[in-house]
């Protein structure tokens, strides 16, 4: 089975965000990047699928030079080959990413494509379903359970207030949610093995974006609320304030 997993490098969620001089993006100074946490589930599911059905796992990522190392993270988790689509332009959006990924995926022609349900930088949930439309493939999102037999897949996904069972055929795009698996931690052996795995770099072909960020701002800190620490009598005062001041009870 030829398995693709699309991954992205994102600022660690504990990173303190500073706005760059352009006022339209974050400043890269002091930011540490991690494999998008939802993509960890995607890489793990890709590797498990390989272990079950045989084949190879291709980790694919789009980004600027600083993002190249994300492929190594996927290698450490068990991916076999890497394709890095290098963009010289920093002003891209999810559409640019999807167009380039789709082009690469089309040539690779995998049987199954995994990716995280969202990336924690822009939280757009856009790339997977852009891909599904461009590639005309089924896409099942926020997946927490997966059963593959031959070309038939049965998946369980999260939805408001419950779970849905969905059936579809491969090739397909599956976006992973927490709960689908427990990603393995890289060990010395897998870290060493990752060093010799090949990364193919290709230049981004598409530069078009459909949206533009005109301003990025840190929201003003909320003024500190009314915090009580007297005794049990606080509860009564709090309920009074919720009724009379906040007017929500």
């Amino acid at each position, binding site marked *: 089975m030829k398995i693709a997993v699309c991954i992205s490098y994102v600022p660690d969620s504990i990173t303190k965000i500073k706005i760059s001089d352009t006022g339209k993006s974050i400043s890269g100074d002091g930011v540490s990047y991690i494999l998008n946490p939802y993509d960890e589930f995607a890489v793990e599911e890709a590797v498990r699928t390989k272990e079950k059905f045989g084949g190879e796992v291709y980790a694919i990522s789009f980004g600027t030079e600083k993002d190249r190392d994300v492929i190594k993270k996927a290698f450490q988790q068990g991916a076999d080959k890497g394709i890095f689509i290098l963009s010289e332009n920093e002003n891209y959006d999810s559409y640019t990413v999807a167009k380039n990924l789709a082009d690469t995926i089309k040539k690779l022609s995998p049987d199954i494509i995994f990716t995280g349900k969202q990336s924690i930088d822009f939280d757009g949930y856009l790339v997977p379903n852009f891909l599904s439309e461009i590639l005309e493939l089924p896409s099942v999102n926020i997946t927490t359970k997966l059963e593959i037999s031959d070309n038939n897949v049965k998946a369980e996904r999260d939805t408001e207030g*419950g779970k849905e069972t969905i059936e579809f055929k491969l090739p397909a795009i599956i976006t992973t949610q927490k709960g689908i698996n427990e990603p393995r931690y890289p060990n010395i052996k897998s870290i060493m093995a990752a060093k010799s795995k090949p990364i193919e770099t290709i230049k981004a072909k598409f530069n078009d974006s459909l949206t533009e960020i005109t301003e990025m701002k840190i929201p003003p800190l909320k003024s500190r609320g009314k915090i009580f620490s007297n005794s049990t009598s606080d509860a009564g005062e709090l309920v009074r304030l919720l009724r009379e001041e906040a007017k929500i*009870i």
Partner: protein
Amino acid sequence: MENKILAYIETKQDKLKNNAYEIVSAARQTAERLNCEFDVLAITDISDEDLKITGKYGAEKIYKVSLKELNAKSGKTDFIYSYSANAVAISNFFILKGYSILLLSATMTGRDSAPRIAIKTESAIIPDVTELEIENEKLIAVRPVYAGKSNVKVKHKTDKVIFSLRPNVFKAILNEKETTIENVNIDSLNISAYDFKDFVKEIKLSSAKLDVSDADRIVSGGRGLRKDDVYHYELIEELANTIGAATGASRAVVDAGWRPQIEQVGQTGKTVSPSLYIACGISGAIQHLAGMSSSKCIVAINKDKDAPIFQTADYGIIGDLFEVIPELTKEFKKVL
């Protein structure tokens, strides 16, 4: 291109979802500001009476696509709906009627459909919007990024655009209108069996009476509710029942297996914006704040006065949860 707005509303279990009213309301206000027309679209088999409730929020014209008729185009019968086919139906209707703006809710289903529709209709998509502004007669969206640590203003470079609006952020404002419903002829939408790429076979609703993603009030519990190696959910549950709230949980609580993942609020769980969010024994890590910081009123109860949650809270009590929560429940019972 002349502006014309389509508001897509979702239904669930034979009823309109609550955020349908927000979407209609947002569409009405946007149409008034842009001085353009707006219509409403639903893919559903709920009754016309139920759909007409949106008239209270300003819907005048509702187009209804019968889900049964749509599904029949697949040539199959053993499924409930198909994400891919619903997106095709919305896209083709949007193109057919010449709309330029689509508003829908950034629910889990809305977030699934929006990018699909964007590609099919050659529109830009701006997801999870929390504010819509008009600059030079053009709509500009504001949305949170980096877990809510910053906001961006985004403009589109295309003629057509889709905005998915974060649930519970836009207000449903009463604006009663006379509503007419028109059934859309399914054949006009050109749906073929090829458009059905996935089949939803079964929907299992969680046993919880109320889910965090739909709730207007949420009481969430964190690690602080553990005592003698037991997670004291009953405290959360009783408070939640008293005020008609859903129960939520922090990541630590879900990872420990004390509560199901469906209750998790935060980056690896759900993003919520209820009117009232009561965080009990939750320290307020950035990953948790990412999921609830757009709540309208945040109440924190924690024994640690330095817990970061107090910096986001509108009200807070520093104290022992095992005393404060029952006391709070008692006080709510007095007035409710």
